[in-house]
């Protein structure tokens, strides 16, 4: 293969500059800022700040409420990730059997992905409306008096359901294309070797989907942790007090409602470290991922 080279040293730098600038302005600069302010105690009225060292972090570690929210976030992430992946896989396997290559259905199913998280939250709000929400009515009909925004557990359930609902389509698309990239003849060879469809799925299809699965696992954890913010914001709007929230939402609540910029910055730094760890883990996996040929 022929490599095209740059004749001057400045052209590549010039071409990279806009991207580097964007990364700097929207990522490194705020991140550095957050790291910096996590070592200070901010005056709530903006009249200066005092250096407090690691106090903000110590406070976090000793804060019962923060730990409670961390545990909830963990549970929330596990549930959303598991159900998003499981439903998507189930749907993809079913769809794959009927619509080999039918692109229109794929596009239709993909649409849900185009819904912005707050809109998803709003649709959830309508579905779970106290007096006329169809899902509330359905739950009432089976004897569950569902009260969104009042009962902690009910609100948490709604958060999980809406977040899963929002994420299933994108997982579905990935799983479906993963399934469709398994050579037809490999599945046919398995049909001759194994009479049980379930056995074939676990022995052949599932392992061949593993690379897609690993990738989605990381994306879905990231999604549950961070991107559900908009959904949660709409669902618990107004009274975050007793309602369940995730760590990301807590950063927002403490920083912008409670005006505790130092504590909130410390929380963001903790989350940044988490993202960093996840990213490293993902890169490791991608590197080691077995390339079947």
């Amino acid at each position, binding site marked *: 293969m022929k490599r095209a080279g740059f004749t001057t040293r400045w052209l590549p730098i010039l071409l990279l500059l806009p991207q580097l600038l964007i990364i700097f302005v929207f990522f490194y600069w705020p991140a550095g800022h957050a790291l910096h302010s996590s070592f200070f105690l901010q005056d709530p009225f903006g009249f200066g700040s005092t250096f407090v060292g690691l106090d903000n972090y110590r406070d976090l570690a000793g804060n019962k409420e923060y730990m409670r929210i961390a545990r909830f976030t963990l549970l929330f992430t596990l549930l959303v990730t598991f159900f998003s992946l499981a439903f998507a896989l189930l749907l993809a396997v079913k769809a794959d059997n009927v619509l080999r290559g039918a692109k229109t259905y794929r596009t239709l199913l993909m649409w849900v992905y185009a819904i912005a998280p707050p809109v998803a939250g709003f649709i959830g709000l309508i579905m779970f409306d106290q007096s006329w929400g169809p899902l509330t009515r359905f739950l009432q009909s089976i004897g569950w008096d569902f009260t969104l925004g009042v009962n902690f557990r009910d609100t948490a359930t709604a958060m999980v359901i809406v977040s899963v609902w929002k994420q299933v389509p994108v997982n579905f698309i990935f799983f479906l294309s993963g399934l469709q990239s398994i*050579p037809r*003849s*490999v599945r*046919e*060879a*398995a*049909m*001759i*070797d*194994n*009479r*049980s469809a379930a*056995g074939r799925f676990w*022995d*052949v299809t599932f*392992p*061949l989907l*593993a690379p897609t699965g690993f990738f989605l696992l990381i994306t879905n954890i990231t999604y549950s942790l961070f991107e559900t913010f908009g959904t949660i914001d709409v669902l618990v709007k107004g009274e975050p007090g007793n309602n369940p929230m995730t760590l990301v939402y807590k950063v927002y609540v403490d920083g912008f409602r409670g005006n505790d910029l130092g504590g909130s910055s410390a929380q963001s730094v903790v989350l940044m470290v988490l993202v960093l760890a996840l990213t490293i883990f993902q890169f490791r996996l991608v590197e080691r991922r*077995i*390339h*079947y*040929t």
Partner: protein
Amino acid sequence: MAQVKLDAVRKVYPNGYQAVVPTSFQIEDGEFVVLVGPSGCGKSTLLRMIAGLEDITEGTLSIGGHAVNDVDPADRDIAMVFQNYALYPHMTVRKNIGYGLKNRKVPAAEIEAKVQEAAKMLNLTEYLDRKPSQLSGGQRQRVAMGRAVVRDPKLFLFDEPLSNLDAKLRNQMRIEIKALQRRLGVTSVYVTHDQVEAMTMADRIIVLNEGKIEQIGTPSEIYHNPASTFVASFMGAPPMNLIRAQIEDGQVKINGGTELMAVPAGWDSGEITLGVRPEDAVLDHSGAVPFEISIVEELGAHRLLHGEMAGQPFTVHVSKEVDIQPGQTRLTLNPSTLSLFDAESGKTL
């Protein structure tokens, strides 16, 4: 006993395309049958119906005397070797070969013994712990073979198993597969579009064209007595020369002149197609037929002379001893080697 019998088996794909017209034939126990034909003629479709990977639209398929139309592929006691080998990429060679046995509840020790035996037979012993991606094309091909033989099935099905190999390996594997099938005595159906494979491997050849059978016969029958101009031009390299000729006064003539052979009394006069294998035309300075050589193609063991006879393209096959230059010469055509076809339908007369 594994006889395969197709009784008016037909295939229409869901989009309405008829890939196989109602077709009947029977494959005897232990026989090696090759399905050959141009691309898209329905060979794979026919094979996949026998395997159970494709529904049979109409007709009955029996294996070993039982109708199997509605039997699962796994329950037909067949093994199939695919063109791209279709190995399980995430399993080692050992697991690939043993997978079918494992699902048939064969005890682990017995599986291991059978896998070892198959691996030994196919020279795969040292690769048993490798993944398919760590093997060469030829080795993958052997693994695919191993997966088929280890189960000791009633029927082997091959769908162009050698077409992804280079020419040298293809020749070698061709001989190995044939020898293996001889040794195991398993009834086999082998699909190829390569007429050399068909000629060298088959006990019987089935020539398919556009979803229907053109001819069934031994390689020698197919070669020497093609049932149609299609078979004549498909089998043999270079193909049989097909030229326009006429029947007049009980004689076959080219260009209304040179008389080549007498035809039985009562044959109608008119246009026909005359078929001559390139090696059946003999260079002969006192021959009856003029032949204008334009190109001499040097092929080492022999030479091909391309030129014109009676204004139509014609090829003659001569041995390497015959030293000849382009130019005018003459040919003798032995009547017993000529094939006559209907000019319109292409069927043999």
